[in-house]
């Protein structure tokens, strides 16, 4: 605060009245998000589809695996079937919400675990430096940028078809991606004045990391996080589409699209309903990512 020679009370009053009202960072973030139309649209679509997936057991009207050849190829809004049935008479709505669940499990669930692992690796590498950094960043540089789908297919060769190889591939590659971002942020942040100040007043390494460094590294992490989720969802669906990935009877948006590929001409909804859903989910996530980038980190805007 500047010392004033005149009436200090009046000066303080002027300064206070000119200062923007204090807002909690979370509140400010929410306000910015509501103002950013694209980000808001992305958030709404993503949240809506997430709710469908999370509430799948309550929303599903049929057993997702139950076949009924007499009821096959029912169009959407047919009595008893909200979105119709597929080529072997399974209820598309019930399969859709459970398929979303599979996407979310691989997309969000695994990316969340990868976030924790990546944060740990990135913080250790950036904060400790030395040989720890050399080893960890060496490993991260090898894995990061390796094509997710190729890794998943090679792992499928080792483990057999199913979700586990996809989950491991997403987990490993996204952990490396997060570790890379966090390490960069930690390196940049640890010599900043506010971190040095915290150290000077006796904060332990743990406090410095948790209270001062990581919160400031969260912006770029969140932005990349939403892209990573989208990439993971696309990879899972693509692998399931070609017969790797989710195995029947477990529905996945990818297998659902593959189910209808021979009936596109006359009974297109078998493919188009899951197809439109996955496009909405990925577009929503990408819009959210772009929006978060604008809101949280103006430095990244032109990238």
């Amino acid at each position, binding site marked *: 605060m500047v010392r004033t020679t005149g009436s200090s009370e009046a000066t303080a009053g002027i300064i206070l009245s000119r200062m923007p009202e204090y807002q909690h960072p979370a509140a400010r973030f929410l306000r910015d998000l509501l103002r950013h139309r694209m980000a808001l649209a992305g958030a709404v679509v993503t949240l809506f589809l997430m709710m469908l997936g999370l509430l799948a057991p309550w929303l599903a009207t049929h057993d997702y695996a139950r076949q009924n050849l007499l009821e096959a190829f029912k169009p959407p809004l047919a009595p008893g079937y909200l979105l119709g049935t597929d080529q072997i008479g399974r209820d598309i709505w019930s399969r859709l919400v459970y398929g979303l669940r599979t996407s979310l499990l691989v997309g969000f669930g695994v990316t969340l675990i990868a976030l924790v692992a990546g944060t740990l690796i990135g913080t250790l590498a950036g904060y400790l430096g030395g040989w720890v950094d050399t080893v960890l960043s060496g490993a991260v540089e*090898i894995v990061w*940028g*390796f*094509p*997710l*789908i*190729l890794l998943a*297919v*090679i*792992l*499928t*060769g*080792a*483990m*057999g*078809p199913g979700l586990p190889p996809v989950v491991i591939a997403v987990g490993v590659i996204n952990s490396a991606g997060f570790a890379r971002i966090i390490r960069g942020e930690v390196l940049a942040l640890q010599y900043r004045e506010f971190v040095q100040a915290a150290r000077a007043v006796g904060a332990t390494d743990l406090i410095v990391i948790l209270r001062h460094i990581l919160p400031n590294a969260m912006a770029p992490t969140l932005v990349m996080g939403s892209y990573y989720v989208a990439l993971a969802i*696309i990879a899972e*669906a*693509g*692998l399931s*589409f*070609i*017969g*790797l990935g989710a195995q029947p009877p477990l529905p996945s948006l*990818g297998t659902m*699209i593959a189910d209808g*590929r021979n009936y*596109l*001409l006359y009974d*297109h909804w078998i*493919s188009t309903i899951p*197809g439109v859903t*996955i*496009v909405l989910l*990925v*577009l929503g996530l*990408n*819009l959210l990512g772009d929006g978060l980038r604008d809101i949280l980190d103006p430095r990244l805007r*032109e*990238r």
Partner: protein
Amino acid sequence: MITYLAGRTARTLVILFLASVAVFYSLRFAPGDPSGVALSPLVLEEIREAYRERLGLNRPIYLQYLTYLGNLAQGNLGQSLINGKPIAELFVEHGRNSLILGITALLLSYAVGIPAGILAAAYRNRPLDQAIMGLGALGMGIPNFWLALLLVYLFSATLKWLPSAGCCGPKYLIMPALVLAAEGTAVTMRMMRSSMLEQINQDFVRTHRAYGLPEWKVLLFTLRNALIPIISLTGLRLGWLIGYTLIVETIFNWPGVGYLLVESVLRRDYPVAQFFSLVLVLAVVLSSWLADILYGVVDPRVRR
């Protein structure tokens, strides 16, 4: 520059070694062993044992690895368990098909993505820019297998212009190449636009304008600097392209390396799976090495 090159090359060799060991080990841990694919389940246990003996599957795994490398070095690649075709023959044939598809897609994504990005930057925030960026968002949002189905629906099922799958000849190439190029085009476009916009605000551009250079010449000079991030990301793009090839080739039955790898993984034809996993990993690692070098060439600041 020499030290930079040597460092990158040494690193690439280490990665290659680690990756080949990882691929070799992970496929040996696969559930079920090759004798289950090649021999009938009714075969006596003794014969099965003899078969394993002949393939050397009973020896310590590091010895198997060394033998494998030795065989590779002599060009002895083994053969498919399913149809007995020599892997070397498969490699030549499928490798050529994959190269044709991959190079077409890569060229396509740059040929469309770079000009579109420049246009969007030149007309920024006007309808043309918004249209291009909208298409870009769509290109990133549509998963490639879904785009593939839509194209097949339009061009094969409805219009009957193009064959829906299969190989060889320009007509068969069009759709897989388009699908493979779609995401790369969208990403290139977005990067090109933001890179151009970054450069357009630089002092040297203002100087050019102040000299009264026509706008297209100004853009030309801006372009040279704006291309740097595009070039430097080529390696990463190539890696992703290789990943997506697996899916696109499988969808269109395009007999390339990716198709072969997915088939062999699904049918547990493990000599084929192992060799082509190694080939694709090699391709990815080499493209990132190439990218490092290109980066050093176009941006002298990196050569430390």
